[in-house]
């Protein structure tokens, strides 16, 4: 009896040791590398264009070098970015939907909205341009698209680009397409949406920065080309907004202000201006 008993007890203590080891490992993991991020890091929600183009990959390391602050970003559409700000899940936004941004600040979810850079929206499509949009104004182009039922791929995700597109349909005096067969809503980021348009041989609207990135990816010879551009209504302004510390007690307002000062500084504005692919500027700085 004694032997079996000891064996059971021994096995019990082995299990205990095993559990103890796991728990220790767990505690070390959680307290070690995982929580290190909390102290000096800034959480930002940004649009897919700043991320997809690779701009954030240049800005974040430089920001860390200049200020020692770690910038973490999640790339979502502007609509979702504003939601994240309302919910206090981020400290800072870098977005491009001026009307929605102004409302966001007016509703006191955000504060200190500052212009950072701009580019413009363009409508791109297949080189042979089956609907004949080349050279038209954006309003004429949309009307012609709908009349010809030419395949058009929309972000459909309430992003800055999507909001712009919807406002343009309205400006053209048309009902925003939704269930029409020729109108495809991806619900995905800008580059993904351009790729869907490429696969379907369809038209889409994008910011110029993401289009240049797409063209660069195809070695300067992209399957879709710019057909509609240069309309004043296609201007695309990017701004930073700090999440309002009055609304969100956990928001790191001080760090957010530091980032805003940094990104609008002379050096960083130059950095943005010098970010080129195919020898073209993706974003044009205009903070000052």
């Amino acid at each position, binding site marked *: *009896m004694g032997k*079996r*008993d000891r064996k*059971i*007890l021994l*096995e*019990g203590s*082995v*299990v*205990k040791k095993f*559990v103890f080891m*796991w*728990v220790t*490992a*767990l505690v070390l*993991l*959680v307290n070690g*590398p*995982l929580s290190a*991020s*909390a102290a000096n890091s800034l*959480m930002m929600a940004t649009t897919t264009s700043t991320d*997809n183009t690779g701009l*954030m*990959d240049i800005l974040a390391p430089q920001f860390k070098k200049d200020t020692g602050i770690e910038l*973490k*970003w*999640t*790339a*979502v559409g502007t609509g979702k970015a504003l939601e994240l700000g*309302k*919910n*206090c*899940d981020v400290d800072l936004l870098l977005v491009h939907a001026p009307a929605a941004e102004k409302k966001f600040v007016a509703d006191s979810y955000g504060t200190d909205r500052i212009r950072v850079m701009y580019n413009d929206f363009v409508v791109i499509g297949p080189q042979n341009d089956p609907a004949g949009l080349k050279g038209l104004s954006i309003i004429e182009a949309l009307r012609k698209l709908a009349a010809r039922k030419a395949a058009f791929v929309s972000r459909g995700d309430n992003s800055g680009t999507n909001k712009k597109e919807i406002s343009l349909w309205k400006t053209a005096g048309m009902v925003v397409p939704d269930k029409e067969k020729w109108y495809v809503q991806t619900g*995905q*980021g800008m*580059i*993904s949406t351009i*790729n869907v348009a490429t696969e379907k041989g369809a038209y889409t609207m994008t910011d110029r920065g993401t289009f240049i990135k797409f063209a660069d*990816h195809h070695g300067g010879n992209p399957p879709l080309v710019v057909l509609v551009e240069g309309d004043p209504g296609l201007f695309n302004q990017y701004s930073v907004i700090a999440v309002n510390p009055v609304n*969100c007690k*956990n928001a790191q307002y001080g760090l957010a202000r530091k980032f805003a000062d940094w990104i609008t500084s002379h050096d960083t504005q130059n950095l943005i201006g010098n970010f080129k692919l195919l020898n073209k500027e993706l974003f044009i700085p205009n903070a000052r």
Partner: protein
Amino acid sequence: MDYILSGLIQAFELLFQGNPETYSAVKTTVLASSLSVVASMAIGSPLGFCLGYARFPGARPIRVVVDTLLALPTVVIGLLCYAFMSHRGPLGDLGLLFTIPGMAVGQTILGLPIVVALTANAVENLDHRLKRTLLTLGAEPHQLLLTSLWEARFALALAGAAAYGRIVSEVGISMMIGGNIKWHTRTITTAIAMETGKGQFAIGIALGLILITLALLVNLAMSRLKRLSGQ
């Protein structure tokens, strides 16, 4: 075909040159999934033990519920966790959203039913003489628990491996709770989803290869454990 082949070649370059972006995603995946498997085992195996060992009214309906939870979709877990972890949600103050521990919590919910169900089965299938022997020897309840679990150790490890296989390959929770943040919460699966969307296959293929290797290792471990446990 060209781009698939060049993607594959680039993938091997990324892997063997130690591309930091690729390995950051691997590290995040291993860290989050290990945390969640450990938590699923720590919480799930005692629960599974109770369910498989004790006879009590309502045990059968609970088993049905647990078996149903095996099919819990990851996006639903992601949605629920998001609602709770957002700073407007009840657990917002813990600051779990967009962190690896946050992802691990969601993945633990994913792994838990697997561990509970498989542990319950394993304990149920233990030699019935074990309980009697232990009681005769005057074992305390906690000794009863630990010894029974020890006897079922291979089946338990099998449960852990099965949970790991499910957790390491999920994308819904990682995307919604982690937010696919580069260098921080970007996992193998979220990176593959994103890179494919961007039309950049090389990193996707490289990460896919690692994921397949992980799955292979888990399956090898499982088949060995199955043999050891005599199933």
